[in-house]
């Protein structure tokens, strides 16, 4: 569980990135943090594993204040996957890359072996086990970065912009994979601009603007609220746009899911026939 109480954060250069954040994330929740560029999304998640400490207010992870423990200790619980995999890959092989964090956390050799195999398998990277991560494509590097974090099995997983640079099939795999982790009881937090991806996942949404949370709620409610989205520089998902235009026909306006949309239209059209 992550609790933030009236958190303010100012960078050393004077930029005030967070301005009074109150937030509670329960275990097993699935949350998408959305908002315009520079709204403070990445700054917010960096507070969750103690990389940044609040200038004012406090952040509690499982009832422990982040200022009181080391980042390494918090990271064991909170796995944060950065936006750009090139900021963390450095090993000679993909296998070593995954081992790195496990060694840092002091797992024994047998567990490390098991976890590495598991993570390679999970992200379909087995065939790259002995390949240098620098030889892989952008999407593959992103998966290696993800595997290297999932390997230590953190209970809270934060993904910063996980869909950037991924093709449709990889995005779909990522989505299923995130849903699966969430069903296993992991807390998932994604930071993203990708409305369509969020619409398909349908998590709880935190909308940020200028260092504040301006709205919090179910994807169906938030992603169909056009004025609100406009404030956060986000456009509605395509499905929601269509249903807004069709609202004159008496169709429900709060639809974001493709299958639901298809069903409603199918029923409507068969009635006409």
């Amino acid at each position: 569980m992550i609790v933030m109480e009236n958190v303010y954060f100012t960078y050393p250069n004077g930029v005030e990135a967070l301005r009074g954040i109150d937030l509670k994330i329960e275990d097993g929740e699935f949350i998408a943090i959305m908002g315009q560029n520079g709204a403070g999304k990445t700054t917010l998640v960096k507070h969750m594993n103690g990389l940044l400490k609040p200038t004012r207010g406090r952040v509690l992870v499982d009832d422990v204040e982040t200022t009181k423990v080391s980042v390494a200790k918090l990271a064991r619980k909170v796995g944060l996957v950065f936006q750009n995999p090139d900021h963390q890959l450095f090993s000679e092989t993909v296998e070593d890359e995954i081992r790195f964090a496990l060694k840092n956390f002091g797992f024994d050799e047998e567990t490390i072996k098991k976890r590495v195999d598991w993570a390679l398998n999970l992200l379909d990277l087995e065939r790259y086990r002995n390949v240098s991560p620098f030889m892989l494509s952008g999407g593959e590097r992103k998966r290696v970065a993800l595997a290297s974090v999932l390997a230590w099995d953190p209970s809270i997983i934060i993904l910063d912009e996980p869909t950037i640079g991924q093709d449709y099939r990889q995005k779909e795999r990522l989505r299923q994979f995130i849903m699966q982790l969430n069903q296993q009881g992991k807390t998932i937090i994604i930071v993203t601009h990708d409305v369509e991806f969020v619409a398909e996942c349908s998590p709880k949404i935190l909308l940020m603007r200028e260092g504040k949370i301006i709205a919090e709620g179910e994807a169906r409610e938030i992603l169909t609220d056009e004025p609100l989205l406009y404030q956060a520089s986000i456009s509605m998902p395509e499905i929601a746009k269509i249903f807004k235009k069709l609202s004159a026909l008496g169709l429900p306006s709060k639809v974001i899911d493709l299958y639901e949309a298809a069903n409603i239209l199918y029923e409507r059209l068969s009635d006409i026939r």
Partner: protein
Amino acid sequence: MSIFDGFKFRSESSPIHEMDPRAKFIYVCILFSSAIIFNNIIPLLILFLIQMPIVLLAKVQREWLRSMKASAFFATLIFAMNFLSLYFYAGHETICSITERSAAMTMRFLVLIQTFSIFFLTTSPDMLGLALEQSGIPYEICFAFTTAVRFVPVLAEEAQTIIDAQRARGLELERGNIIRRIRNYIPILIPLIVNAIRRSMELAETMESRAWGAVKNRTNLYALRIKGRDILLIASSFVILIILSIYLDLHSGPINNSDDALLNRRLRLVARIIKIKRGILTFRLRGCKRPFEYAEHPRLDGYS
């Protein structure tokens, strides 16, 4: 980071910022050489104090203070080292003169830092590049220089992100003995270097796709021109040098070693520096062209 803030260009509008970088460069050279030629406290103190109006005029007093604070540690170290070595190895001197000499050495260091700080605080890297270019240095070299300077903050920011990313994977930089601590930096350095190389390749590609180097004779939007105040700055720095040289001539007391040969050598050195500076100055002034003279070149010269 705060140490570098004392030397990082700050965009302000002040007469000092608007000065020709070449004039400021000459000023820096003269003050540097004066600080090195003189080794007693009074001229060095004067060199330090006469720069104060410039700091105030350029509105960079806060940054200047920061650079001074950053150098306080080294200044103390220099003072202590000088004091101790003079005390133990130059036995015939009094404590008073030892203190004076150590203070002079410290002051020299501070003058160097201050001059450096003023120059970089008030001169944008672009202007510096332009100055290099208009002094006849090949454009490729100027471009490499400005690019290198421009990417320093980018690299610093990237290093911070990489440190964050690795700490998020359980890396503890401050753990272990000294060797272990150095090894801890490998996961930071490799991505940093790889990214820097990758970025330079990308930069080269984007530059080529924008026809970099297609035109042999480049023109510039801005042309540097030495104005009245630039001449004033250059002239006053020479005046400072001359006045201090006269002072040196009159006050070559016991501290400053009254040996005539040495003094002569020093004065000759000053004269030679002045001559070299004058040479550079006239060379630069000649190298400075007006924009409309460039316009005579066809724009896409050499492009076919």
